[in-house]
């Protein structure tokens, strides 16, 4: 339902002058993610209904002893659940593409290619689901096919990573908290993405299937990339959403604690998985203990790292936060033109869009001066 809502809004209700190639990359990535949701979610719903019948009403869609086929369930499940990864990741990519240009005062490198790459990721990711099932008696012609498509996803994703790098290339970076989170998340996405491409290859995948390598890899995606992007978004749009500034010192403390402890937690899972520690087990061989102790201590530190966020930023800015101005980062984008805490109807009058997005620092358009960062600190 949410997906229909977003797609309809983006297709039919844009402000005058807001052509498709003037939409921010975040909107592009939301559009791609929601289209993907619309195409793929029904297969999971169907699978769950069939499973419900199987378990409660004595039917036999997936029961191997009664001529059912459990592999069909795997197919239906992964046909949704692989694209689900991209439904979660695409908005994160969009957030990076909004924040990185704003703090490097550079135009977003290759805006059109980044926008189209969102759609590219969405389309290709529909055709990769069998790579979760390389060990489920998949015929070899299918394995080859799905190695190719899985590695193909790396192409639009690589376009995105290169776009971010080229955006901050040779610019003077302003390391406010949102920028720190964005750069940390984008950098750790590199490790998550590279291990992902490794896993796309059948020989490697069969070796590490069901080990902690997989756990480490997907935590690099879901925590170190997506959750970092979520914190980026919280800090970047915090003035707009709450009308207050957050305390910068607590934000930086939060970033460094999170960044260090996340790597301490999830990196040890990669080597310990390569050595053969199986996932989903509660006890293990004594020789794996070293890495596990590091991961556990990192995990506890990660739990501590949320405290500056709650205590310092949420409660602190609620009680002592200074009022935010309309556009504290001097960013482009329509959301910064309205008041902080937007009014009930968002805009007094619907704005007319005449410029491309993220056009920081173009000589032709250089109307937006960078903010005085020293003033922001206080």
């Amino acid at each position: 339902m949410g997906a229909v809502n977003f797609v309809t809004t983006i297709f039919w209700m844009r402000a005058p002058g807001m052509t498709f190639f003037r939409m921010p990359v975040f909107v592009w990535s939301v559009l791609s993610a929601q289209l993907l949701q619309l195409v793929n979610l029904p297969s999971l719903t169907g699978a769950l209904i069939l499973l419900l019948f199987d378990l409660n009403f004595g039917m036999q869609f997936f029961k191997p002893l009664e001529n059912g086929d459990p592999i069909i369930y795997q197919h239906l499940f992964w046909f949704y659940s692989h694209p689900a990864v991209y439904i979660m990741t695409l908005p994160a990519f969009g957030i990076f593409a909004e924040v990185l240009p704003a703090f490097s005062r550079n135009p977003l490198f290759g805006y059109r290619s980044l926008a189209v790459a969102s759609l590219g990721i969405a389309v290709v990711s529909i055709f990769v689901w069998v790579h979760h099932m390389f060990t489920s008696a998949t015929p070899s012609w299918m394995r080859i096919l799905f190695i190719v498509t899985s590695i193909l996803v790396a192409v639009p994703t690589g376009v995105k990573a290169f776009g971010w790098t080229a955006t901050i290339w040779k610019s003077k970076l302003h390391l406010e908290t949102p920028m720190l989170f964005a750069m940390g998340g984008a950098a750790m996405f590199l490790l998550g993405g590279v291990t992902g491409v490794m896993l796309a290859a059948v020989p490697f995948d069969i070796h590490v299937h069901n080990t902690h390598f997989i756990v480490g890899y997907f935590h690099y995606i879901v925590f170190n990339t997506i959750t970092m992007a979520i914190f980026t978004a919280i800090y970047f749009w915090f003035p707009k959403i709450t009308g207050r500034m957050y305390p910068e010192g607590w934000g930086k403390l939060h970033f460094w604690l999170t960044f260090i402890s996340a790597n301490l937690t999830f990196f040890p899972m990669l080597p310990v998985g390569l050595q053969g520690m199986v996932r989903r087990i509660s006890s293990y061989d004594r020789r794996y203990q070293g890495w596990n102790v590091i991961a556990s201590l990192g995990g506890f530190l990660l739990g501590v790292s949320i405290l500056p966020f709650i205590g310092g930023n949420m409660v602190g800015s609620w009680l002592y936060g200074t009022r935010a101005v309309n556009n504290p980062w001097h960013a482009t984008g329509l959301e910064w033109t309205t008041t902080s805490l937007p009014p009930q109807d968002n805009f007094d009058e619907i704005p007319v869009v005449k410029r491309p997005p993220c056009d920081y620092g173009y000589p032709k358009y250089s109307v937006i001066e960078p903010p005085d960062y020293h003033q922001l600190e206080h």
Partner: protein
Amino acid sequence: MDNIIGYRESSTSQNEPENNWRRYFSFSTDHKVIGVQYMVMSFIFFLVGGLLAMVIRAKLITPQSNVVDRPLYNGLFTLHGTIMIFLWIIPFNAGISNYLVPLMIGVRDIAFPLLNAISFWMIPPRGILLLSSFLLPNGTAQSGW
């Protein structure tokens, strides 16, 4: 009056932002309120999922430990995965998209506001159902994630 970005700046005369915290607990169809509701609720579930993860790591710190028994351990990481995906990342993305997309493309609200509110209010019951499975005699789902 045009501001530095070249757009007309909102005047705060009639179109005041309604700054009343009670609206965040009400059945509102304003996309901004729904966005904040999504984000705050999913953050609470993020804390719950994080606590489960720390119990898992406490169990794994030594090769054989009896912090929790094995069926509960299986339930813990199953629910950790389910909560983090379906009650943290996806609702948070829905929330931030809800808040920002109409602002970014310059519309007053999302296409179907009532539908939007209904899809949010389906999530808290879902989370409560998931977490209440800890109280069942057979324990939680243990299928793994």
